[in-house]
């Protein structure tokens, strides 16, 4: 029996290895570093790991068009862009996570118990969120570079499991938080089963588990289309679930609301990039030649997603839920970039993902600032008059909302324009029209929030804005600056994306 040692191309794997290594060190820190030191050590470690990963990623950007780890990983331009986006967003998100005020002092303690009270008093912190975050980030950066179904599935679970856990760690409203974790977990596992079932049929269709093999089978066209169609359909369910497309969206409002806000921010921004990254790769390379089969369905889903997300968002009273529905609507917009299936669509989707991700983290960061004595205030009615009490928070939140609404001079507008024009170019006019229509609806509720903040007088209920740490403030500022910069002068980034974003098949 012969066995040749596999060639892994470590340099291409290095960002992921760094992340995993950082996470493992984090676990060890949990075990060996004294409690008092842990928060600082973990934060430093996590940020260091992420920065290191970014630097390493930057160094290897030229080595694109390569596969690594015996073909299970592919590293090309889009891969670099998506991984970089995820890492940058992760860094901003970690700024928020660093404010441990959001996390339960002792998740094992019963909500409201004496034990919990003591844990809070003693200033206990669950620093485990840092390694969990790093694990999730590792899964996310692996998701869009996976080159076969096995790696894809492992990455999917890798990014999901830590998020399931982290969703349940909120300090306030713990029952709701745990419920969010349960829902996210059950539905996530449910959708994973669909994903897996689809993968099985794709394997059955093509006799191959690698993307290249499946693609060849589709191009060759020898196989049985029924198997292919079932495979595409079920695999898509798994992916659409992750991006929160209708009708696979129902987890996201509940989970966004229940999860600790930093986790929501991280999850909303980074997961979306990862999942759309994977979708782009799969639909643009693997399924590209079966376009006839999935574009109509995906268009329908995109239209329904945009409209439902926008419509239901109007009726929301909770800012986090509203942002969740807005993120559903944005999933619809992003899907139109997937449907476009052209170079412009790819560029636009990547740009949109980054711009939207940054704005999302910024928006949730502002949410973490608005508090009363019992923690965050997410009831929109209590956001009244925020503009007066905290021009900083209100103005930046308004900016992010305007970006979501796609108002010119914000990144959202450039994103929306580029993605719709790409979709239009590919002939998906219906999607574009629905997109425009739902943008109009969406504008309505974004503006409503701005009205609440700026034009409504505050009710005296103790809601105030605290800037708990320089890090949170920094994340808001960074997000705002990026949002404006990408709206005013997006050319460098767009050019950068255009030059890099070419899938190798």
């Amino acid at each position, binding site marked *: 029996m012969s066995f040749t040692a596999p060639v892994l191309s470590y340099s291409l794997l290095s960002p992921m290895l760094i992340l995993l290594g950082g996470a493992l060190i984090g676990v060890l820190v949990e075990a060996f570093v004294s409690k008092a030191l842990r928060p600082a050590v973990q934060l430093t470690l996590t940020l260091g790991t992420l920065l290191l990963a970014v630097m390493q990623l930057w160094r290897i950007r030229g080595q694109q068009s390569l596969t690594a780890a015996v073909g299970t990983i592919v590293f090309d331009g889009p891969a670099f862009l998506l991984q970089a986006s995820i890492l940058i967003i992760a860094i901003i998100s970690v700024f928020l996570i660093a404010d441990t005020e959001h996390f339960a002092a002792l*998740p*094992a303690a*019963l*909500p409201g118990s004496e034990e919990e009270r003591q844990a809070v008093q003693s200033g206990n912190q669950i620093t485990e969120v840092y390694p969990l975050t790093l694990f999730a980030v590792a899964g996310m950066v692996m998701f869009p570079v996976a080159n076969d*179904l*096995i790696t894809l*599935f*492992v990455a999917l*679970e890798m990014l999901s*499991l830590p998020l*399931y*856990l982290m969703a*349940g760690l909120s300090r306030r409203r*713990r*029952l*709701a938080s*745990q*419920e*969010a*974790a*349960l*829902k996210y*977990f*059950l539905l996530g*596992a*449910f959708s*994973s*089963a*669909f994903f*897996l*079932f689809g*993968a*099985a*049929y794709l*394997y*059955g269709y093509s*006799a*191959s*588990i690698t993307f290249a093999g499946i693609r060849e089978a589709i191009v060759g066209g020898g196989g049985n289309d029924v198997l292919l169609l079932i495979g595409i359909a079920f695999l898509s369910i798994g992916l659409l679930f992750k991006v929160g497309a209708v009708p696979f969206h129902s987890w996201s*409002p*509940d989970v966004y*609301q*229940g999860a600790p806000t930093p986790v929501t921010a991280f999850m909303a921004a980074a997961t979306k990039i990862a999942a759309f990254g994977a979708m782009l790769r799969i639909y643009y390379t693997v399924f590209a030649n079966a376009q006839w089969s999935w574009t109509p369905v995906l268009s329908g889903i995109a239209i329904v997603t945009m409209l439902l997300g926008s419509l239901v968002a109007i009726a929301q009273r909770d800012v986090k*839920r509203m942002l969740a529905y807005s993120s559903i609507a944005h999933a619809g917009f992003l899907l139109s970039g997937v449907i476009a299936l052209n170079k412009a669509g790819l560029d636009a989707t990547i740009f949109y993902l980054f711009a939207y991700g940054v704005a999302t983290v910024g928006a949730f960061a502002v949410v973490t600032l608005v508090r009363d004595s019992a923690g965050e205030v997410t009831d929109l009615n209590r956001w009244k008059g925020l503009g007066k009490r905290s021009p900083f928070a209100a103005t930046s939140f308004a900016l992010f909302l305007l970006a979501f609404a796609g108002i010119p001079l914000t990144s959202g507008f450039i994103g929306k324009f580029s993605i719709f024009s790409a979709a239009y170019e590919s002939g998906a006019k219906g999607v574009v029209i629905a997109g425009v229509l739902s943008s109009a609806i969406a504008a309505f509720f974004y503006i409503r929030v701005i009205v609440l903040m700026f034009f409504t007088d505050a009710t005296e209920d103790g809601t105030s804005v605290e800037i708990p740490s320089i890090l949170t403030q920094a994340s808001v500022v960074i997000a705002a600056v990026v949002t404006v910069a990408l709206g005013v002068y997006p050319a460098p980034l767009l050019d950068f994306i255009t030059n890099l974003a070419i899938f190798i098949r």
Partner: protein
Amino acid sequence: MDASNYLYISALLFTIGAVGVVVRRNAIVVFMCIELMLNAANLSFVTFSRINGDLNGQIMAFFTMVVAACEVVVGLAIIVTIYRSRRSASVDDASLLKR
């Protein structure tokens, strides 16, 4: 015998699992139904592996099992946590977050 018969079994088990998720209230049973779905998918993998004469399907099934094991750990931890707070393992009781 025709290997595709296994596919029918697999599809049926998957369906039953999916329905189980919808109709059962006990979180643990719901979770078991999901496991049933994963197992059904695995059966498909193994069957296709045989049809295709290719071991990759079995590898995938193997990975599924491992990943499912991790999922079980995390899932059961979450369920236990919820049970401890609510004294109930019914998924219907966890419906604070809505609308």
